[in-house]
């Protein structure tokens, strides 16, 4: 913490004198915060603009790649909510991602259900249900469960699902389920390309905004308390375990949504999708981009996938080593992720400010 706190941009440095001091004193008296630099909306706007323009500028095969990355960014959001905001170390997030992928693949294969309005809610529900089951078991004890218990529990869940998928003939064993029919809307079929890209981007934006609403609410403040000192907030009377189970379940639902999109985009599902490799991958996205900021998770997914893509093209044999070193360097020197280059600590953590206006809903100024 000390390192992080060193970066705190204090709202009112003591040495400021003269006019500004008086202005600040005035604001203080009015119960308002001194203005802090607002970089977050700029970063968000920039990322959105880049995402909107990408298919116009990229070659077709790169648009397909970019679609995959956006889906993974959605997946990263789910982990960020759980770890970055609530401090629950879920090392098995792929369980929800992959089980939803398998679920919709089975719907398409065995029941010929590919309608977007059926398969996406179904995938979301599958992720939600698995997260509720696992989260209920791991988090809802009478006394708080330890970080080790939760991380090992989620990891085991993901590992077991991987083994199960590999060994179960109905699920296609090692090969998974190939040639899933495309997702459809009436007679229209979503195949790889710009339409699928914008669909996925639209979903990401909506989910992002919902998450933003959530983490800026009073519920988000409770999550911050949970992350920083779970024991303390239990003594205030918070049902800390319930809060954790709720956010874990929401995270599972988002992962499920991402997993079902992924299954239809790739056209097949395979055991890795529920396993430890993908579970770890999402942890890296979020650590790399900056946990505890929604945009950090998105940026992390884009950069890790983009860099891997470029490296594997140019350094065919040793690219994983280069990527690994890069990740280590970021985690070592930028523990708060790449986003911390542009986002101060105060803005990252966020706060309620000023007096809530009578008819305007006050929101917590958190990323």
């Amino acid at each position, binding site marked *: 913490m000390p390192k992080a*706190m060193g970066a705190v941009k204090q709202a009112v440095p003591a040495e400021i004198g003269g006019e500004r001091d008086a202005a600040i004193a005035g604001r203080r008296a009015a119960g308002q915060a001194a203005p802090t630099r607002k970089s977050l909306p700029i970063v968000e706007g920039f990322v959105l603009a880049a995402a909107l323009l990408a298919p116009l500028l990229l070659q077709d095969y790169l648009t397909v790649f970019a679609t995959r990355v956006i889906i993974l960014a959605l997946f990263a959001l789910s982990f960020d909510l759980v770890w970055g905001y609530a401090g629950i170390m879920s090392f098995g997030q792929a369980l929800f991602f992959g089980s939803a992928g398998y679920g919709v693949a089975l719907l398409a294969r065995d029941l010929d259900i590919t309608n977007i309005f059926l398969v996406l809610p179904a995938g979301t529900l599958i992720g939600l249900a698995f997260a509720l089951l696992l989260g209920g078991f791991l988090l809802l004890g009478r006394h708080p469960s330890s970080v080790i218990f939760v991380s090992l529990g989620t990891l085991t869940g993901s590992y077991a699902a991987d083994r199960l998928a590999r060994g179960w003939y109905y699920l296609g064993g090692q090969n998974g389920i190939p040639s899933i029919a495309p997702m459809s809307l009436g007679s229209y079929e979503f195949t790889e390309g710009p339409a699928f890209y914008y669909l996925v981007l639209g979903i990401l934006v909506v989910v992002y905004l919902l998450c933003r609403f959530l983490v800026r609410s009073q519920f988000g*403040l409770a999550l*911050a308390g949970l992350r920083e000192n779970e024991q303390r907030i239990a003594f*205030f009377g918070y049902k800390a375990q319930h809060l954790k189970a709720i956010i874990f379940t929401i995270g599972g639902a988002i992962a499920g949504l991402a997993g079902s999109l992924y299954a239809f985009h790739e056209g097949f599902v395979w055991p890795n999708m529920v396993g430890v490799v993908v579970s770890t991958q999402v942890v890296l996205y979020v650590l790399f981009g900056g946990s505890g900021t929604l945009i950090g998770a998105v940026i992390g997914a884009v950069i890790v996938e983009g860099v891997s893509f470029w490296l594997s093209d140019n350094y065919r044999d040793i690219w994983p080593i280069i990527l690994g070193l890069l990740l280590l360097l970021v985690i070592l020197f930028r523990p708060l992720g790449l986003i911390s280059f542009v986002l101060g600590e105060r803005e990252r953590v966020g706060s*309620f400010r000023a007096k809530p206006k009578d008819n305007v809903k006050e929101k*917590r100024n958190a990323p």
Partner: protein
Amino acid sequence: MLLEAAGIKKVFGKLTALDGAALTVGENEFHGLIGPNGSGKSTLMKCIAGAEVPTQGKVSFVNADITAFTPTERARAGMSLKFQITSVLPSLTLYDNILLALQAQSSLVDLVFSRTRRLLHDQVMTMLTQFRLADRAFEAAAALSHGQQQWLEIAMALAGKPKLLLLDEPTGGMSLEERRVTGELLQPIKQHCSLVIVEHDLDFIRDICDRLTVLDQGKVLASGTVSEIQANTSVQEIYLRRA
């Protein structure tokens, strides 16, 4: 009686921290818990607050047996605790620290839609003003001095309007002036809240408490009004022994 802890025994491995300790606190009573280092004061506080589960014994609060209650359940029953080590949330603003404490019993829907936000704003500012922190409301709690962090934490512990507040060494690390102010800040809460206070500063205890319980080696050595305890020879002895 508001709080009755009886026959509390707590064993950690081979160490018996408490051996049949007891504590009784009435309504609107400020009760001091004193004793030499290692006498079991903090452990008794933790057993009352629910941070530790006693090996034996019974804790009742407002006529209900709460021995097996979790900290959350105790808080909801009207008990509040300020830890010995300050545990304000350093990266949040003072305002958010207090709001976090105040909104603890808001419903989930209210939290998600920030519905109690406007309602609680005035209470947050009142608490901050009462504890002389209002002008720093929107700074990170980490920027406060140690003494101010202690006040912030007392304010947070009081935010939920508890019937009983447990304070573990509130003046630890404070200057003389800060101690005096702490005493002043605590006086007004007597109208609606009882207090159990663990403290090494005997002058401070004497000034604000109605009754005292003295612990020694996990047992109650004496319990009574401040003047009774001051006149008690065995109490004088352990403090002389320590000196």
